[in-house]
């Protein structure tokens, strides 16, 4: 099986290297064929692994492939841990990646950086697979940084644009903050466990559960809480949780296919995956779980609200992604890891679908992204419209669609949770459902319904996108509908993940819910009498009322609640705050150090100062050399007298 696992990882890397280094020789079509073939092989092998591990119930694989080095008894290895969690993740990653590869042929058709783009996304697939298949922290960190690197490269793919460079620098810097926490977390683990291997760490963790550490004298912290919060800070960066979320909306500067693949479906969920993978550690720290739940709840609600005021089609979807990542984090905090991963999977499908459909609209309108210049596109872009609608329904949790199952499970799990902060989180995710429906249908109505605001010239040439664009849309629409119904039972309430996810009995909210579970139909029917569904319907109705029935209402609301609107438009001031305090402060501090520390103190006083001082002293002392003979003789005599006096005095 090791060959299969290696094949899964290396096939995309092979494609990436060929397209990246030899793109000029194999040409545009050569580039997309090698990378698509690589990812397709990877996908096929992933399905094989999925079948073996999950359907046939084969034992998980955990082993090293290659030992990089052994230092002081600590092994640095490349190895794979393939269990149910990994099997699910690799299928999701390779499937979405394959769809995005095919879609890119159409989307990037005229771009001069065609080969480079294919090389990057194949490289991304490789990195993400390394991340999810890792069996140790070193490789996890490698994958973690590698996906970050590709994300950076792809956000700045159009590097001639000022805004793209700003965005990728921002993403890079914000992720540095998270990665520092992550790295410190790994360091603390290495310090106390003396190994980087998951299995050994998980085995030792319960014995260290009551260990405390002291960083500041007089303050003791639980070791597990410190580790988990540090690791979660890493997850906050990668999975864009408040306040490290600021980079994700700007990342939309990158081409749409990567918004779908990296900044919606896969990479941003790496943090969620990592926490689920580390469930044996997080279970041991209720503080960390509560912290996650609160952060997730704040993200889920506040970012959803921002989606309502955005006018850029991709940004609306981006804020929706942030909000959904918040839901996943809340689920992690409630110990419903399976729920988080379930939502991760369904979200991967429908969010990739939404992004790709948005991309299809953007192509049709010749790279126009402002929804105020769209409208009534339903008949011009029928396939895009229907798939977009499916994605939207899945997103808002319409009964029967995939998002319904996963989101309902999360809300229910939070309701069941007894951790501090669960009440607030429950309120946030409930309101979030209404908000989600509101901004989603606002987008749908403004883009596809109502009156057309498309300019006349563009309207004449409106036509549906080519098959390479629509086929992935359809291919993603199918799982967006059915995946929830198929997997809800086994994944949430049965032993789907086996030992891959560990939950303490007192935290196991899903097991509690599972006792009342009566099959998919029962889930749907039960859902219909629960508030979330009605909140979603209320959201749809509000959107319809405001944007179809009475399109003048939003302007009135906007002027009535000008302050609120301004706060939302400024995204709660996070960007301004970061720009002024961190970026500006950093620059000012740097300039201060440069001016005061470097120019004045080091250059001025220490380097030039001593030089000038000695030079000045030298120019003064040289005048001792008067040229008068008697002065010279005097100096000799004085010297002699002093030397004579010294032994006399010292005796």
């Amino acid at each position, binding site marked *: 099986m090791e060959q299969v696992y290696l094949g899964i990882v290396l096939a995309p890397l092979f494609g990436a290297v060929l397209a990246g280094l030899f793109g000029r020789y194999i040409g545009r079509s050569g580039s997309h064929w090698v990378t698509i073939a690589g990812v397709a092989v990877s996908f096929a092998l992933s399905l094989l692994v999925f079948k073996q591990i999950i359907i046939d119930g084969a034992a998980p694989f955990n082993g090293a492939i290659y030992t990089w080095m052994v230092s002081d008894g600590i092994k640095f290895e490349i190895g794979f841990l393939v269990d149910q969690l990994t099997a699910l993740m690799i299928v999701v990653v390779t499937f979405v990646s394959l769809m995005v590869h095919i879609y890119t042929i159409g989307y990037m058709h005229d771009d001069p950086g065609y080969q480079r783009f294919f090389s990057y996304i194949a490289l991304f697939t490789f990195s993400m697979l390394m991340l999810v298949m890792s069996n140790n922290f070193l490789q996890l960190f490698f994958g973690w940084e590698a996906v970050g690197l590709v994300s950076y490269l792809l956000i700045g793919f159009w590097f001639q644009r000022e805004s793209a460079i700003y965005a990728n620098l921002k993403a890079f810097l914000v992720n540095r903050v998270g990665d520092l926490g992550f790295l410190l977390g790994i360091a603390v683990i290495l310090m106390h466990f003396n190994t980087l291997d998951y299995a050994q760490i998980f085995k030792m963790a319960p014995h260290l559960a009551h260990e405390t550490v002291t960083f500041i004298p007089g303050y003791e912290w639980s070791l597990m809480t410190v580790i988990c919060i540090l690791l979660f800070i890493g997850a906050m960066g990668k999975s864009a949780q408040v306040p490290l979320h600021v980079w994700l909306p700007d990342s939309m500067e990158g081409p749409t296919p990567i918004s779908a693949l990296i900044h919606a479906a896969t990479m941003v969920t790496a943090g969620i995956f990592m926490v689920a993978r580390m469930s044996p550690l997080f279970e041991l720290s209720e503080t960390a779980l509560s912290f996650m739940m609160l952060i997730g709840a704040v993200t889920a609600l506040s970012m959803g609200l921002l989606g309502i005021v955005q006018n850029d089609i991709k940004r609306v979807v981006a804020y929706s992604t942030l909000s959904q990542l918040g839901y996943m984090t809340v689920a992690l905090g409630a110990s419903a890891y399976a729920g988080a991963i379930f939502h991760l999977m369904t979200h991967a499908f429908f969010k990739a679908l939404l992004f790709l459909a948005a991309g299809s609209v953007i192509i049709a309108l010749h790279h126009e992204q402002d929804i105020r210049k769209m409208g009534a596109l339903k008949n011009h872009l029928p396939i895009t419209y229907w798939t977009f609608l499916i994605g939207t329904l899945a997103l808002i949790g319409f009964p029967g669609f995939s998002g319904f199952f996963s989101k309902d499970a999360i809300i229910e799990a939070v309701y069941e949770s007894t951790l501090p902060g669960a009440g607030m989180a429950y309120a946030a995710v409930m309101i979030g459902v209404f908000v989600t429906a509101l901004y989603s249908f606002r987008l749908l109505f403004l883009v596809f319904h109502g009156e057309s605001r498309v300019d006349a010239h563009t309207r004449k040439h409106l036509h549906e996108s080519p098959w390479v664009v629509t086929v992935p849309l359809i291919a993603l629409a199918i799982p967006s509908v059915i995946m929830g119904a198929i997997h809800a039972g086994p994944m949430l309430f049965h032993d789907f993940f086996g030992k891959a996810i560990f939950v303490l009995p007192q935290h196991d909210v899903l097991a509690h819910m599972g006792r009342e579970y009566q099959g998919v139909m029962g889930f749907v029917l039960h859902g219909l009498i629960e508030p979330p569904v009605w909140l979603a319907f209320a959201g749809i109705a509000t959107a319809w009322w405001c944007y179809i029935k009475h399109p003048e209402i939003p302007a009135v609301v906007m002027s009535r609640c000008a302050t609120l609107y301004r706060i939302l438009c400024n995204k709660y001031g996070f960007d301004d705050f970061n720009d002024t305090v961190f970026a500006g402060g950093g620059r000012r501090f740097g300039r201060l150090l440069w001016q005061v520390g470097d120019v004045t103190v080091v250059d001025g006083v220490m380097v030039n100062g001593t030089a000038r001082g*000695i*030079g000045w002293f030298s120019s003064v002392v040289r005048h001792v050399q008067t*040229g008068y003979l008697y002065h*010279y003789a005097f*100096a000799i005599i004085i010297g*002699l007298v002093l030397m*004579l006096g010294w032994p006399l005095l010292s005796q």
Partner: protein
Amino acid sequence: MDFTLPNFAPAMPEIFVLSMACIILIVDLFLTEHTRVVTYLLSLITLIAAAVLTANLDTAEPVLTFSGTFINDSMAVVLKLFIYLITFVVLVYSHNYLRTRQLYQGEYFVLILFAVLGMMVLVSAHSLLTIYLGLELLSLSLYTLVALRRDSVSASEAAMKYFVLGALASGILLYGLSMLYGVTGSLDIGNISSHISTSIATPAEHSIVLVFALVFVLVGILFKLGAVPFHMWVPDVYHGAPTSVTLFIGTAPKIAAFAMLMRLLVDGLGDLHSQWQTMIIIVAVLSMAAGNIIAIAQTNLKRMLAYSTIAHVGFLLLGILSGTLNGYASSMFYVIVYALMSLGGFGMIILLSRAGFEADRLEDFKGLNQRSPWFAFMMLILMFSMAGVPPTVGFYAKLAVLQAVVEADLVWLAVLAVVFSVIGAYYYLRIIKLMYFDQPDDVAPLAAGFDMRLAMSANGLAILGLGLFPSGLLTLCARALNP
């Protein structure tokens, strides 16, 4: 009275040099300006022959002769050989310089040979009288050499100052020697040494006189070396004297002064080490500080090298004050290396000068790299060596004395010395900067002849070569002091 003939063999080189100096003096009377090259060649031959004679002396055991006033040991042989070598190069360097400046007179060569004789006597002295004899012979020759260009105001002034101050220092030394004789009742260095070691074992009432004698003697030696505060003559004399004379004063006599220091202070007054160590520490620190700091403000290369000499003397004293055999050997290594570097430094001034132009200002070195990359490189090696930058030999010289200081548990002094040598690096590197990064004001080609160029190149390469393979010279110095 005992009329048995003394053993002349150990003094053969001295006798030979004396005879040759007299012969050259007479031969020169019959030469004209055009045939004076004979004097030059005869002087060179004298030095070579003296070297051969010296090298052939048996040094397995120290040999005393002339009633114990004259000694020949391995240190004497090594130092004399380097004195010949350096004087030989001095003559080669100055030959052309003298011809273009109406200084091409037989007196120059004869006086230098007498100075060499004085140095030889000083190096081999084993009695207070011989020391004084050698010193005076050397000094008087040097005073005259400085005044050789008697129509030059600055040269006359320099000679006057040198003479008056030298006489003062000589007087101080002589006073010290007389007190030493008074205390110990002997002129023989060996007897003095044994007397002091017994008197220290049984404290005598005249110990304060002994200390006074030590101070007077020390002042005389330090004057000769040019250590602060007895250094005032050095810049004025170096600056005022013709460059060919400065070249000589700045090199070989330092080796002789080192020998005098060894004979008097170490061989004679070695048991008073605890007394003179502190004095020398103070003088060494003052010399390194004053030399390096004042050198920065100089615009004249000769003056700058004069202050650099003072700083180097400070370093040289570091090895002596440690009071160990290793320390003395490192000082001997240092003084030889210093003489070679200084030879190159003043030689370079002569190389760049021509009739009516003394290349002794710093700006004369501007853009040398464009005029002559090879000699700019030679100067670079010399300056690096003086600053103590590896892989030149100057680095090992500093390293050796610093090691000796550290071994004597004076780490602070070693640190201070390194700090001063960093300050000193500034003015050496400034010359390199001038040569390589500035535009030349003067684009005339170098006027030096082939012999000069060859000697200069050999000088520079020797500094580099000794830096790459320093162990030979280091062991030579160590073995000379500890056969």
